[in-house]
């Protein structure tokens, strides 16, 4: 398996493969508020807009939607503001549906149930308090969600301790009107990209990153991964994408720290 330090085919490294796999999750979104959380997803959102998905709307992570190719962590005060999106408007945007969020998932199961609230059986006395519910319950039931998981082996669990973001089995138990906006678009990890394009809504291998075998991906999962046909290799970044990632969005390499 490759690590962040290794240069793969075409000169790309694992972190860059992951950025592109996440960017691919936004393909086709059009005029949607793209709301990635964390360095790798933020680069991915900006990359998608700069290349194949130009109509995406992106925030400066404070209160404004901004135009242009802002580097990670750069002061957004000089950027062109195209919309005012304080937290209250973000929630309005969530409920009106024109949004695609990327969140983390310390635990995720085969149906896509995600937990970033707490670890342990007793919710009143958790072993580890994590972020809490944050926006996961509302995000999942209202619009597309993608998960970014830098260490698959730690996160792909048999069952989650708390459901903050409901997966396909939990959603299947709801009546139709409540189900209609739920979509887990993609799960991207250090090993591959996954989706739920199976009949029973279980996680399927969509692509594996260069050098990763199906056996390795399966070994890093507590549940059985669905496979349909030949599994492709994750797409390599184009020369333009590599340039944008390395020279424009993240010249100091902040993205690489997520893999440690």
């Amino acid at each position, binding site marked *: 398996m490759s690590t962040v330090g290794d240069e793969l085919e075409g000169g790309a490294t694992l972190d860059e493969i992951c950025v592109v796999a996440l960017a691919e999750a936004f393909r086709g979104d059009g005029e949607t508020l793209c709301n990635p959380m964390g360095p790798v997803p933020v680069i991915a959102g900006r990359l998608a807009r700069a290349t194949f998905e130009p109509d995406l709307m992106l925030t400066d992570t404070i209160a404004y939607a901004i135009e242009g190719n802002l580097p990670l962590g750069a002061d957004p005060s000089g950027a062109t503001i195209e919309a005012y999106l304080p937290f209250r408007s973000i929630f309005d945007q969530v409920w009106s549906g024109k949004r695609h969020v990327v969140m983390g998932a310390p635990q995720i199961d085969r149906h896509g149930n995600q937990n970033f609230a707490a670890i342990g059986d007793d919710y009143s006395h*958790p072993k580890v308090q994590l972020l809490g519910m944050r926006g996961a319950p509302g995000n999942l039931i209202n619009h597309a969600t993608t998960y970014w998981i830098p260490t698959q082996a730690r996160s792909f669990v048999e069952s989650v301790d708390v459901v903050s973001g409901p997966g396909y089995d939990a959603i299947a138990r709801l009546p139709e009107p409540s189900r209609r906006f739920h979509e887990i678009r993609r799960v991207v990890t250090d090993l591959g990209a996954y989706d739920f394009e199976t009949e029973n809504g279980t996680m399927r291998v969509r692509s594996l990153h260069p050098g990763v075998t199906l056996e390795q991906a399966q070994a890093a999962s507590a549940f059985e991964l669905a496979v349909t046909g030949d599994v492709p290799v994750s797409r390599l970044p184009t020369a333009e994408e590599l340039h944008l990632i390395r020279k424009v969005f993240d010249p100091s390499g902040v993205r690489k720290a997520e893999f440690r």
Partner: protein
Amino acid sequence: MSDKRMTEDEVVAELESGMTIGIGGWGSRRKPMSLVRALLRSDLTDLHVVSYGGPDVGILTAAGKCRKVTYGFVSLDSIPLEPHFRSVRQGGLLPEFMELDEGAFYLGLMAAAHRVPFYPTRAGLGSSMLANNPELRTVVSPYDDGEELVAIPAFEMDAVLIHMNRADQKGNGQFLGPDIYFDDLFAMAGEKTYLSAERIIPTDDFLKEGPVHTLRVPRTHVDGVVEAPMGAHFTECPPDYGRDEAFQKEYAATAKDPEHWARFRADWLELESHEAYRAKLDEKSAS
């Protein structure tokens, strides 16, 4: 026109143990910290705090002041998990809590502000939010769709504390940063609302400070005004000042060691007044 100016201690003297207290701001942003510290040094206990939680919730729960917290998250922003709150939760030391989707939390505030019993939402369906909060109920749409939705109950609050950039002595509040968060709803939702501000200015001067859209907290919902320069410290209060990250780091580190925490509380959080706190901050930055 009435003059609503008061001190932090006069605000706390109007509160009682067992009350439900709403605290404005968001995470480690524009929190009414001089009022939170006044709560800390009071003998009030058994509180139910309602907050988009930051160090307000961390401090009050770690000091054992809370019976219950209603929250969507408790974060220091640049430190994603509030470490004191984390210790309290992991120690099983918080008797009751209601952890909600953070958008659903907005609806609880809005329901209280509008004096209706609940607002409906899909947030929570299919997640553990309902199972973990057995007091939450669902409601069926009375229209033809018949959809079942989560009914987020109104957050009825005995008192609300918010911090603004500017206010006048009548209680009108002005925010000058990028986001008011939900402080206008907090103000409307509180049985009593107390507003601290960086500066109290003549009403005539509001529009010299910012555009008319920044005048979002009307005096009809404000019962007391406290002038508290640096009143949100160490949380951010732009454009007046940013977050004091070094101070926040020091605060966060005290969660690891009860003695360190006790010392930090005595040295900083339990000083006799906001003036003493500011004087000590000045001393610190001079050294």
